């Protein structure tokens, strides 16, 4: 029996070491920390009637709104180990939208979506809305509709605090890390071929490499990098020169004009009455220098 418990303990230590590897560098996001603002609450609209919208009808009669979100993007949509609900700016936007459509936060069913399944999930009705760092582009508009944008992200660089790299033009000859196949990674290959690109499947591996000095910079949308910079204060900084524009939109099934108008109205209202700013400051930090985007009703 003693032997068995030794083995179990050994295995547990091994597992801990492994999980430490995988999760290292995931910044704390959400309201657990001391001194952070209270989670914002949104007024749930009553007597919403969107009977012109098939998606809304179905969700309303089921009593739940299924929202596709990312669960591995710190600051935007991220599920902490041990937690079963995601947190981040995307999540707050989803709650704002849901509230305007008449769904309380506990009526939202969070569905994890990754880049490869957002369009299929919307087309097949597995989710009603997608709020998942979803860049609006023309190819995607062919199969899904977008409300928003609710935020314009830009590709930026996370570097060591004492690094000389101030922008993408300083990248020549240095190694820069991103996620395999992502748009930021493709931008580096296409626009900055003098930089050497390293790709992994998650940003936390990139951050581990940045810590050990194996890479000189990590690149992706600035919102995600801010989360890491906040966690490793004094160690990392965001270069602060965004060099692309990624308008994040809320994806929804195609040709549901009533729903799209309602979501666009909700986003505009939230930007006007300050809930947008509240959500931003709760999740991503100081919003004073951040410009609110204009909703594009294409």
């Amino acid at each position, binding site marked *: 029996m003693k032997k068995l418990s030794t083995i179990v303990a050994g295995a547990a230590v091994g597992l801990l070491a492994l999980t430490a*590897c995988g999760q290292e560098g995931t910044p704390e996001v959400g309201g657990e920390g001391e001194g952070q603002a209270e989670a914002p609450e949104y007024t749930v609209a009553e007597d919403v009637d969107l009977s012109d919208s098939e998606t809304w009808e179905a969700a309303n009669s089921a009593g739940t709104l299924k929202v596709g979100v990312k669960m591995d993007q710190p600051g935007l949509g991220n599920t902490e180990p041990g937690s079963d609900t995601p947190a981040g700016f995307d999540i707050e936007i989803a709650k704002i939208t849901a509230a305007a459509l008449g769904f309380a936060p506990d009526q939202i069913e969070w569905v994890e979506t990754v880049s*490869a399944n957002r369009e299929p999930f919307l087309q097949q009705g597995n989710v009603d809305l997608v709020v998942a760092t979803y860049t609006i582009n023309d*190819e995607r508009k062919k199969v899904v509709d977008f409300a928003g944008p609710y935020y314009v992200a830009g590709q930026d660089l996370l570097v060591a605090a004492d690094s000389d790299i101030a922008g993408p033009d300083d990248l020549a000859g240095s190694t820069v890390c991103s996620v*395999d*196949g992502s748009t930021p990674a493709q931008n580096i290959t296409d626009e900055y071929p003098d930089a050497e690109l390293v790709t992994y*499947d998650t940003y936390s591996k990139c951050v*581990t490499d940045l810590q050990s000095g194996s890479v000189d910079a990590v690149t992706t949308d600035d919102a995600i990098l801010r989360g890491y910079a906040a966690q490793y204060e004094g160690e990392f900084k965001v270069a602060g020169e965004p060099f692309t524009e990624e308008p994040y939109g809320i994806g929804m099934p195609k040709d549901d004009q009533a729903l799209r108008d309602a979501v666009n109205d909700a986003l505009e209202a939230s930007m006007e009455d300050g809930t947008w700013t509240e959500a931003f400051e709760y999740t991503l930090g100081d919003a004073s220098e951040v410009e609110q985007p204009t909703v594009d009703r294409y």
Partner: protein
Amino acid sequence: MNTLIQTFLSGTWGTLSLFGVTLIGCLIGGTLLAAMRVSPIPVLRGASAAYVNVVRNTPLTLVMFFCVFGLPYLDIRFGSTAAMNSFVLANIALIAYTSCFVAETLRSGIATVPVGQAEAARAIGLSFTQVLSFIVLPQAFRTVLPPLGSVIIAMLKNTSIASAFNNRELISAMRGAIEVRGDIVIPLLLATALVYLALALVIGRVFDLLERKLVILR
């Protein structure tokens, strides 16, 4: 459309380079492990058995984790660029893992060679290495061609794990293509599956040919 084909072609090339290097490496590694396993020296037998049992029973993702993030901690690096380094490390992981399966397959082939042959070879004065390389292994390889084909095809598909560790191959190509063409996700997934299928069918065909020419039926 052209850029998509370009993406997939360079992805296929990435997969094939990983496959090629690992193929050679795992055949050599597997043969060595199998030879150790049947050698007259107990230490070698034990070492081979222990290695096979540990590595074969570890998920490949973990083996790759150890190679890609563990070896650099020991200051083991290859090549001057990060891409070269990752390519070599991924190959080491794939070879370390696949060798176990090659070794076990080969061992089953060695068992089919009648003991009398090895004894006869010893009796005319051949050393252990000579018995193995001239008498036993050639016959063993020819016997196990069909299962060896399955091991090699499994290895081809296992190269996809390298995409998570800074190697550009088919899965990376697929991810990249999906990122730019969100309107045709399912066709892109099917296309990727088709490329793997085509590559695997070619390998299967090669092994069929080898089998027809070489296999020994007892």
